[in-house]
C-alpha cells in the first residue's frame, strides 16, 4: 500500500437521530479508511447503519460526533456550498431507482451535474457524450428514460455519475431493481471503472453482488462487524 492519504477516513464517527423522545444511535464509533482505487461493498441488514454511513461518506449528511475526512477535507470544516462542490466534483452517485429526470433525454440527464459546474457548452457536450459512450449507450443519447430498459437506465445514471470525472462513485443498491443478468452486466461495468482507477463504494444486501468487490465491510447495529479484504474476483 502506498503512503498516500486515504480517500475516506472516519474516526469515531457517530450519528444519532432523535425520534420523538428516543435517540437512535445509527452509527457508533465507526473507524474506517478507504483508499484511492478500492472497490468496497458495504453490507448489513436494514437498520444496521450502512445507509447512514453512505450518506455521511457522500457528504449528504453530517456526523453527530467524530471526524470524517473526504479527499483530504474535513467535512466539519466545509459549509453547505463547499459540500455541494465536493459532491459535484469529487463524488458520483448511483441510486437503486436510477433517479433519471422523466421526459429528458439520456444526454441531458447525463449533463445534469455539469449544470452546477463552470464549463463551456462544448466541453459539457463532449464530456456527456464520452460518458454515455463509456457505458455503451452512444446510440441511445436522444432516448428518454421511458424508451430505455432498466439496465440501460442504470447505465445512463452511471454515465451521469461519471461525467464530472469523480474520484469515487457511491452506489446505493445499484442492482436492486434489475434482473440477475442485467445486474451482472452493471457490476461488470463497475469493475471496469474500478480497474481504470475510480474508487467504487456500493451498498448491497446480495452476497453475489458483493462478490464483485475486493473488500466487504459489514455493518450491524451501527458498528462495523467485519471488514474483509479479498483477492480480486
Amino acid at each position, binding site marked *: 500500500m502506498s503512503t498516500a492519504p486515504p480517500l475516506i477516513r472516519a474516526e469515531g464517527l457517530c450519528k444519532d437521530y432523535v425520534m420523538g423522545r428516543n435517540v437512535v444511535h445509527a452509527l457508533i464509533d465507526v473507524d474506517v479508511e478507504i483508499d484511492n482505487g478500492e472497490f468496497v461493498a458495504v453490507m448489513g441488514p436494514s437498520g444496521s447503519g450502512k445507509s447512514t454511513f453512505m*450518506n455521511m461518506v*457522500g457528504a*449528504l*449528511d453530517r456526523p453527530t460526533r467524530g471526524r470524517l475526512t473526504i479527499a483530504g477535507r474535513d467535512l466539519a470544516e466545509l459549509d*453547505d*456550498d463547499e459540500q*455541494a*462542490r465536493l*459532491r*459535484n*466534483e469529487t463524488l458520483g*452517485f448511483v*441510486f437503486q431507482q436510477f*433517479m433519471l*429526470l422523466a*421526459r*429528458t433525454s439520456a444526454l441531458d440527464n447525463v449533463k*445534469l*451535474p455539469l*449544470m*452546477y*459546474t*463552470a464549463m463551456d457548452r462544448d466541453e459539457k457536450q463532449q464530456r456527456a457524450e464520452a460518458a454515455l459512450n463509456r457505458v455503451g449507450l452512444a446510440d441511445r443519447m436522444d432516448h428518454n428514460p421511458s424508451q430505455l430498459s432498466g439496465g440501460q437506465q442504470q447505465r445512463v445514471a452511471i454515465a*451521469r455519475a461519471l461525467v*464530472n470525472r469523480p474520484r469515487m462513485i457511491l452506489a446505493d443498491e445499484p442492482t436492486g431493481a434489475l434482473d440477475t443478468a442485467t445486474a451482472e452486466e452493471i457490476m461488470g461495468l463497475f469493475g471496469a471503472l474500478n480497474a481504470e482507477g475510480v474508487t467504487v463504494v456500493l451498498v448491497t444486501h446480495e452476497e453475489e453482488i458483493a462478490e464483485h468487490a475486493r473488500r466487504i465491510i459489514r455493518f450491524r447495529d451501527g458498528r462495523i462487524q467485519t471488514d474483509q479484504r479479498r483477492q480480486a474476483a
Partner: protein
Amino acid sequence: MNDERTGLHLSASLAIALKAIRTNAVRSLLTMLGIIIGIGAAIVAVSIAQGAGKQLTDQIEQFGTHTLQVRPGNSWWGGRSRGADSERPLTDDDVEALRALDGIEAASGRVQASVTSVADGNNWPTTLLGVGADFALIENFEIAEGRNITEAEAERGAKIAVLGQTVVEELFNGANPIGQRIRVNRTSATVVGVLEEKGAGSWGQDQDDVIWMPLDTVRSRVARSAEAVADNAGRIHLKVWDGLEVLDVEREVEHLMRVRRDIQPGAEDDFRIANFAEFIRARNETESLLGFLLAAFSATSLVVGGIGIMNIMLVSVTERTREIGLRRAVGARSRDVLTQFLVEATVLGLLGGLVGLLLGIGGTMLAARLGEFPVLLSPITLVGAVGVAVLIAVFFGYYPARRASRLDPIDALRFE
C-alpha cells in the same frame, strides 16, 4: 469563486422552468389566469384614470380654472313663485360692477343667437356671439389676423365682426376676409379680425364655427326680440386674477350680485354662478370612480393570482422533491435550487403579465369604443404592469422556492 457558475445557471434555470411550464401547460395557464385578469384590469383601470386625468387637464387648459359665469336664474328654480322680476336679466351695469371687484381681472357680457351668415355668394348657418372686448381674454381666444373688438365698439354697437376659422373657410374659402363685408341675418358688418383656430371642444362641438360681434350690435340689431331689454348683457363671463382662490372670488361675486339685485338675507339667489373648474371636476369624478373600482378589482385579482402562483409552486416543489434531492446530490447548492424555483415563478408571472398586457390593451380599446371614455394607454403603464406581474410572482414564489431550497437532500431523495 463559486459564483462563476451563476451566469450559466440562470439560463439553465430558465430552460428548466420553461420545460416544467410546458409539461403542465393547462395547469400553468389556469395558475396564470389570476395574474392575466389582474394585469388586464389594471391596465384598463390606469388607462381610464389617466384618460380622465388628461381630459381634466385639457379642459382646465381650455376653459381656464380662473373663469366664472354669471347668468339669471330660471323662474321655476327653487320651486317657488317669485313674481315677474325673479328672472331679471343681467345688465351692462352688472358687468361694470363686477369688473370693478378686486378679484376680477376681466368681465364681459355675452349674448348668443343662431344666425345665417352670407358673403361672397356663400351662406353658412352659424352661432353669433355678442361680446365685449374682454371676452377673448376670458375665454382664452387669440386673434390670428386683424384685431379684436374694442370696448368702445362694444358699447356703441359698431357694425363689425370677428370670424372663427370655420366661418372664414365656409364664407371666403379660406381667403383673408379682413375688410370684407358680411351679412348676418339682415345686418351687414365689416370683418376686422379672425380668431386663431381652437379645434373641437370637450363635447365635440366646433369652437371655430362662430362669429363675434359687439354685444350691443347683436342685441339691438341682429337678435331683436319683444322681451329684449336694451342693456341686457346676457350671461356675464368673468376672469379671476391668477393667484386668487376662485371660490373666494365666487363668494364676492355672489355677495355683490345679491346686493345689486336686492335679495333679502335668507332668500335664495335668483341668479347662478357657474365655476368651470368645479363643473369639470365633478364630471371627471365619475370616470375616476370607475377607474378606482377597476383598480380595486385588479388588485384583488393580482393577490388571488399571486396566491395561485404560490399554490402551484408548492405543488411543483412537492412533485419534484426527489428531483430536488437528486440535484442536491449531484452538486446543486441550496441557492441554486432557490434560483431555479424563483425563475420558474418569475416566468409564470412574466407570461401571465404579457398575456394580461394583450388583454389590457384590448379591454382599453373596447372601453374607449363602447363606453366612449377618454383613455390614455401609456408605455409606462404597460411596462409597469408587466413589472408588477413579475414582482407579484417573485413575492409569492419566494416562500415555495425557499422551502425547496431548504429541503434536506437525503429526505428529498427518499421522498415517495
